[in-house]
């Protein structure tokens, strides 16, 4: 097999990955336990100051930020799943001969700048908004009123995250449902299971691979991002990412520590994906 000789083409990639992934990860880990001036190790000392800045009961501000970040990301992911699964299912099982077109429809929003979409969303969610201004010309009105500012901020952020990352939930789930062999469903029905039971015992377990990927692809950016949160709260809310944004120039050690918090989550999800989806078939 001559093609086996082409394996060496992958070697530079290994080096490239080691330099751009391996070394920085090692640096992040070491820097989080140090007190350095930027990335230079001259005169640096070992310390757990960065960790204490986060996990201390004396000042729970940072812990509260962590909690808020987790809550928004969790709620957004759950909503994405509850909306995204049925949508993926509907497309995959639709009688239309051209599912490709419907699929493209779900991807098209991704070709608009995602931050600009959130700027527009902020406009829509404001009490006096552009839609209201337009609708008032024909005697209608449109305005969403929230009970208080905190609620408005939380709901806006969740809506922003859901609308931005929903396609990342729909696509992997669609991919797996589409591949499920229809004869399995027929077999289940022939053996007397009704539709609900067939879904619960056949379709859903077989789509778990896509669900896992979808959940990870939505939860991770929701948990680690900061731009959408800042845009929709006009800069009033801090999330984990904002702490990184504020400190990335002056306090590398604290930033490294925060990165590890996110990395722990990522590492866990990679283990899961590697277990359920060895060839990365649901990632694209």
């Amino acid at each position, binding site marked *: 097999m001559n093609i*086996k000789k082409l394996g060496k083409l992958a070697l530079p990639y290994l080096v490239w990955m080691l330099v751009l992934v391996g070394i920085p990860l090692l640096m992040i880990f070491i820097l989080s336990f140090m007190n350095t001036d930027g990335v230079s190790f001259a005169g640096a000392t070992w310390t757990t100051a960065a960790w204490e800045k986060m996990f201390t009961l004396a000042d729970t501000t940072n812990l509260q930020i962590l909690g808020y970040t987790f809550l928004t990301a969790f709620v957004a992911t759950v909503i994405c799943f509850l909306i995204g699964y049925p949508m993926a299912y509907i497309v995959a099982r639709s009688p239309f001969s051209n599912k490709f077109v419907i699929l493209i429809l779900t991807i098209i929003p991704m070709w608009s700048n995602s931050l600009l979409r959130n*700027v527009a969303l902020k*406009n829509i969610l404001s009490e006096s908004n552009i*839609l209201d201004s337009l609708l008032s010309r024909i005697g209608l009105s449109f305005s969403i009123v929230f009970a208080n500012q905190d609620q408005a901020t939380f709901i806006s952020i969740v809506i922003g995250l859901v609308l931005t990352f*929903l396609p990342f939930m729909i696509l992997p789930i669609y991919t797996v449902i589409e591949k499920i062999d229809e004869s399995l469903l027929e077999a289940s029905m022939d053996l007397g299971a009704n539709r609900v039971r067939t879904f619960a015992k056949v379709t859903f377990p077989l789509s778990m691979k896509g669900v896992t990927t979808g959940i990870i692809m939505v939860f991770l950016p929701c948990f*680690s991002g900061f731009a959408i949160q800042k845009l929709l709260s006009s800069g009033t809310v801090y999330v984990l990412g904002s702490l990184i944004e504020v400190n*990335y120039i002056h306090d590398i050690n604290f930033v490294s520590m925060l990165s590890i918090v*996110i990395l722990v989550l990522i590492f866990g999800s990679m283990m899961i994906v590697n277990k359920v989806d060895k060839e990365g078939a649901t990632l694209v």
Partner: protein
Amino acid sequence: MGVRKKEPGRITRYLRRPEVEKVLQSIANVLKYAFFAFFMFLMYLPIIVIAIQSFNESTGLIYQFTGFTFDHWKNVLTFNLDSSLMKAISTTLLVALLATGISTVLGTIIAIGIHSLPQKKRQGMVFLNQVPILNADIITGISLMFVFKIVAEVIPGVFGIPSLLIAHVFFCIPYVVLSVLPKLAELDDNLYDAALDLYCKPAVGITKVIIPAIMPGILTGMLIAFTMSIDDFLISFFNAGQVNNLSIYIYGGYNRRLAPEVYAYNTILSTVIIVALIAMYVSSSLKKRKNLKREPRHA
């Protein structure tokens, strides 16, 4: 008791009558598509608002539609933009085009390499390839920033377009690799052997035999790479130095008003991409139809 239990109740019996079941079925269908359409509409609502803003005459308040104008579109199409927006847009497009080109070529070569590895090594590389995709953008951004900070000690000018471009190539390659690998798996490895047996050099064998066969995968990867690159914020944010791309420009506007041309630019860009995709789709399905018509004659 057991027998009576199996007998459906009056309501169930009513619901199971064929004509009732038919009505229920169509109600369920309507609800299903209403659900789908509603959330599709929600996903499109911000884009509709962006399009409305691109025609909004109001220069002061973005929450008021004062009148219809084509000025913003005209300004974008004649490149008559304020300098910071102009720079942001040109940086975004330059980096996206270069990064897409470079990562498509490199990603294809790497994918061929990975495909040719023995199974254990291949799985390892596939896993490694997934790292940048599964990794949170913010971690990728910080990681690359650390590397560039060290490099900057030697080459001071690295932060800016060079670091931005390398960063984008870095996160685009894995998508190309992932889209090409399945196509390689479908390919018959004997074809390449045959090419070499017929005295092809390996390079010619790759470009004349392997590449044409995996073209659809390469194009998909290219499209994903471009999509990721023009929209990226987080990785660019940490690696752009003093340069702004469009996302960074928009992010800077979280508490100030954006130049209205940004809405027009965004609408124009997505329209162009959509029209291009439709054209590609129509031409490919026309080709398919032609081939279908031809086949019987050959047979």
